[in-house]
């Protein structure tokens, strides 16, 4: 098991380097010379040249990339063109908010989807199943920022129950978390249902029933534990979507998270911030996926055994 984890960690390194390179390369072809955003209206040619040097804009793409990675390893993501602040610091300021939003959104999604998926699967083809599936389909088809707007319209503008923006107090997280959570819940409901249906067909549940295990325990202990395996996988994959989806929710609800940082930085053409935040976020996603794989191995003894050998 340890070897498995170590192997996965080693495999992570080229992926992280690749992720950094792709984002770095994409951001490097951005039009316009960023030096003009930093320089004031009256900058002279010499000042511009000096600034270019200072901003690390000289040299070829590969050169700049390796310089960037070198700095990254030291925890230095460069300095924002706009605020002149350390990008790592900006990122870390926002990260807790994003993690808070993402984790609560995940909780919302799980709380909505797993019971719904189970109910749908256990009552396959009944009205409960149909209703759950229609809800899931609607959730899947609804752009989450639109849902966010509707929720905001209803719960904060019309009813005034919840704040429409900001990140203060617990209530402020509810609407963005529901917004992000619903789309994910839709997907997870479908996964839970099909995974449960798959498991509910299995002979070992009949074995369990035949030995007198109560139906409740059959579903929630015997079936669910097996059904969880694909759900966990989707969960890991979806974490990246939650972070992506939270960009929209953060925009709608003025939630000061990483997504908002990226979007604002793009608007301000603050390339170091965009690059740094994207690279850090992607690395985070990659690491979370690794963690999910490891958890996966723990939940499913078959996989664990495979790697222990």
């Amino acid at each position, binding site marked *: 098991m340890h070897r498995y984890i170590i192997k996965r960690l080693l495999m992570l390194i080229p992926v992280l380097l690749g992720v950094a390179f792709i*984002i770095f390369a994409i*951001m490097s072809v951005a039009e316009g010379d960023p030096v003009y955003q930093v320089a004031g209206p009256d900058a002279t040619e010499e000042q511009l040249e000096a600034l270019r040097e200072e901003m690390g804009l000289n040299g070829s793409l590969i050169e700049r990339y390796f310089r960037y990675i070198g700095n990254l390893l030291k925890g230095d993501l460069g300095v924002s063109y706009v605020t002149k602040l350390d990008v790592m610091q900006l990122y870390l300021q926002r990260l807790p908010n994003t993690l808070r939003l993402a984790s609560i959104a995940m909780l919302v999604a799980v709380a909505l989807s797993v019971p719904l998926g189970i109910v749908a699967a256990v009552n396959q083809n009944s009205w409960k199943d149909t209703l759950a599936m229609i809800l899931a*389909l609607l959730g899947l088809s609804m*752009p989450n920022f*639109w849902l966010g707007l509707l929720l905001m319209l209803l719960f904060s503008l019309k009813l005034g129950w919840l704040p429409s923006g900001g990140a203060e107090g617990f209530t402020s997280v509810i609407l963005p978390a529901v917004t992000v959570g619903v789309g994910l819940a839709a997907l997870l409901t479908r996964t839970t*249902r*099909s995974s449960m249906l798959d498991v509910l067909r299995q002979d070992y549940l009949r074995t369990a029933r035949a030995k007198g295990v109560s139906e409740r325990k059959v579903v929630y202990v015997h079936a669910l534990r097996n059904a969880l395996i694909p759900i966990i996988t989707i969960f890991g994959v979806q974490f990246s979507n939650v972070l992506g989806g939270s960009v929209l929710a953060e925009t709608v609800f003025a939630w000061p998270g990483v997504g908002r940082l990226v979007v604002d930085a793009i608007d301000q053409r603050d390339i170091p911030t965009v690059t740094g935040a994207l690279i850090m*976020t*992607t690395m985070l996603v*990659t690491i979370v996926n690794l963690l999910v794989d490891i958890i996966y191995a723990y939940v499913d003894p078959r996989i664990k055994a495979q790697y222990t050998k």
Partner: protein
Amino acid sequence: MADNAERVSKLYKKRSSLGMAWRQLRRNKGAIIGMILLIFIIAGALLAPIVYDYNTDVIGMNVRDRMQWPSAEHICGTDDLGRDIFARIVYGARYSLAVGLVAVLIALVIGTVLGAAAGYIGGAFENVVMRICDIFSSIPSVLMAIAVVSSLGKSTINLMIAVGIASTAPFVRVARAAVLVVKDEEYIEAARAIGQPDWKIVAVHIIPNCLSQIIVQATLRVGSAIISAAQLSFLGLGVPAPAPEWGSMLSAGRLFIRDYSYMTLFPGIAIMITVLSLNLLGDGLRDALDPKLKR
């Protein structure tokens, strides 16, 4: 005797794959609803230029008629520049569908070719392609698309490219997996034995065999591509104004959501219905074409 044989053959026919797929699809009410809705939407998109004049009805403004609530004259109301929202939504279908389709087409072509090649060639090439695929899929697709658009600049084409690139990885996976399954079948061996070139084997024998999975994947992806495009437009990174793209209409309506909620309501419903119909159809296709995934 004869009876029994007939019955057996009837049973067998029931299970023949294409016929069954169509039967399945036809019986799936959801898929039919999706298909009908989709036909309506596509027809609307195609007919829009006949019914509406782009310059006067869609982008032409009548500032004095701004912000009118839905009425008989403007069934979805007018926006902040006095443009009829219904005309813009109908016309907007052209953008959303075009962006969705082209983006998926980009992803499909690149993804299928790369995936099929990876699966067929194998070895180091496969490894490199799959690792790159891993890298791409670990970048959240919204962020990826944002990065691409913000780097290339805002335009309809760039939006398609961005959404396309961000949804390529799944196609690579599907194509590769399908090829791996088919690759070692005997008829491929046979084709190889009679000296058919590799590209021809892939194009003639392998790709058609994984087509059903790719079609399913593509149908489902068009929906999410439309949402991605709308998201980018919402963030101001999509189709430039004054084009009536649904996402940018939503974004514009957001400023007035408090008093003029219809401005955000209708474009949102348009996106939802379109994506819903694609999902319904995609689900139906998946159930019909891909028995493995059948619930």
